[in-house]
């Protein structure tokens, strides 16, 4: 038991994959093997969105305690609206739409960072405030109307290659790139150093503000991109389409092995945690438990999993 915990402690992301596998197994045992493959396909499709925004949130959380991006849901709503409006249902405008959604995200990120840097507002309150403003912008920009994605864009976001969603493949490549950025670039190292101790990082020559700026820009840009993809995937934008990602991003980041105290991050774990959370809900839905029981079990299983993994151990 302890040996297992120790081994998992070294690779915390393994745990979230193990958890995902376990719930999947429990589900198909119940259905006697029926639909196992399709379930994985669905899990991959939906985890993709959580992963894209989750990685942005991970970088933010890694920069240290108190850093969290609460503006992600609003950014998703705004950027989804911007993308759909600019694409206007026309295939020829897809690229403009994608650029615009990332641009919208960057604008939100820049605003967040300006609040944090210039006005010295604690990040959690800065992003909370900006999320409200961004939501207002989204409302007055889109008036709550849903716009359909261009057909090719919708097809791309829902395409599958023998059961594996194309978007998930892209997101896996994206995650690999982000893992490399985290561990092997100056920006990534700077982020990790800041998360351990801002003062030490600054005195060790790390460009603190540059890294923080990039972090908040990135988180919002990823949320923006996710907004467009989500709108494409679900057949149009909606104001409430990002709501579930507020807690979901924090949950996948932390379950995936990133330290809330900052300075330690884990990209693969986000994938594992996103799959785990999706399959967990699927399992409980499949079992047909009532809403209350489902909620209680969701909570208990999350706690049980993290308890099994054991606590924070210093890594490298």
């Amino acid at each position, binding site marked *: 038991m302890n040996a297992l915990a120790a081994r998992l402690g070294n690779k915390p992301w393994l745990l979230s994959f193990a958890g995902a596998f376990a719930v999947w197994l429990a589900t198909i045992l119940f259905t006697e093997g029926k639909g196992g493959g399709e379930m994985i396909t669905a899990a991959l499709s939906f985890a993709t969105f959580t992963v894209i925004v989750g990685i942005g949130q991970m970088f933010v959380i890694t920069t240290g*305690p*108190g850093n969290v991006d*609460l503006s992600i849901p609003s950014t998703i709503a705004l950027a989804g609206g911007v993308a759909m409006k600019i694409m206007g249902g026309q295939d020829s405008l897809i690229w403009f739409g994608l650029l615009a959604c990332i641009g919208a995200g960057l604008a939100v990120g820049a605003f967040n960072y300006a*609040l944090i840097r*210039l*006005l*010295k*507002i*604690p990040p*959690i*309150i*800065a992003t*909370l*405030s*900006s*999320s*409200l*403003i*961004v*939501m*207002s*912008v989204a*409302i*007055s920009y889109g008036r709550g109307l849903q716009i359909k994605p261009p057909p090719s864009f919708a097809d791309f976001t829902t395409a599958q290659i023998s059961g594996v969603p194309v978007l998930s493949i892209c997101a896996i490549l994206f995650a690999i790139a982000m893992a490399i950025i985290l561990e092997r670039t100056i920006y990534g190292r700077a982020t990790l150093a800041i998360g351990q101790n801002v003062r030490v990082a600054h005195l060790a020559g790390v460009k603190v503000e540059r890294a923080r700026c990039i972090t908040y820009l990135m988180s919002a840009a990823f949320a923006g991109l996710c907004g467009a993809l989500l709108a494409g995937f679900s057949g149009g934008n909606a104001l409430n389409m990002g709501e579930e990602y507020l*807690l979901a991003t*924090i*949950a996948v980041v*932390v*379950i995936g092995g990133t*330290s*809330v*105290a900052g300075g330690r991050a884990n990209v693969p774990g986000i994938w594992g945690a996103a799959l785990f959370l999706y399959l967990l809900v699927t399992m409980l839905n499949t079992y047909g438990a*009532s*809403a*209350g*029981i*489902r*909620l*209680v*079990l*969701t*909570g*208990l*299983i*999350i*706690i049980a999993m*993290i*308890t099994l993994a*054991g*606590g*924070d*151990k210093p890594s490298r």
Partner: protein
Amino acid sequence: MTDTTLATPARDRMAFLGDPRLLRKALPAVSLVAILIAIFVLNERAMSYRGLDLMLKYAVPIAFATIAQMFILTVNDLDLSIGAFVGLVACIAGTWLVDQPVLCILILAGCIASYAAIGALIHMRRLPSIVVTLGMSFVWLGIAVILMPTPGGMVPDWLKALMSWKPPLVPFPIIACLVIALVAHVLLMESSYGAVLRGAGGNATAIDRAGWSLLRIRMSMYALAGFFGVLSGLSLIGLTTSPDAHIADRYTLLSIAGVILGGGEFVGGRVSPIGAVIGAVTLVLTGSFLIFMRISPDWQIGAQGAVLIVVLALRALIKLREAK
């Protein structure tokens, strides 16, 4: 020229005596005063017993929840379940408090005990509090939904009467907030064990080396959080006169924001109970302020954010001037 150069060392010595600290402590109050003045300018009716009573009623349960969150933040943890917990307390009290008060109190005591148990679990297995409490938020909500699939239930009259009590001179919400702030202040800032509790957030190793049980400290903090969460739930249903499982979902974020607005920090055991209550009240007042400014519904949501930013920017200005 000579003046300033001569003044600097003296000021520096003053600074050492804790001057900037005092100023930092005063910042939350500055925000509160600013927003109050803005409200009074917009609507002089607010500047009355009745006005303050109406505006601040819902600050009482938020103040309790904020203090609960503050206890958790003191030991460098974060509670993502306080909102759901307050909702559950509301449902429990709404179900049993009228008919079976003794049973109800026992159940609520059990809730506090389970909060302490969560603290113990987090400590013994060295778990990230954020995940455990996130999980617990589902558990609390789930139990509340099972208990009360549709809103309803009874609230005892004494509780309603207490929450709508109109004492002479000073409105009840103000008295309540003052009492909450003072009690929490005495518990955490003035008592001798309070110093140990805060110390655990500042340097747990030091506390351990001085021979204190960190397990007991964490359990105490979680139990205190649970206790104040219970008070939050009770005061809330005293106001709403009826519970609902989702009644306090928002308190999780509000309570964190309140502590931070009040000058608390996420790590290092640096918190201020009085500041936290001020923060909670400020948050509530931003809502009132908005209603007094007539804005188109499109921008009402954003305006709430903008008000928060302006209030905090004021503080930045003061900090900047102080730095010079």
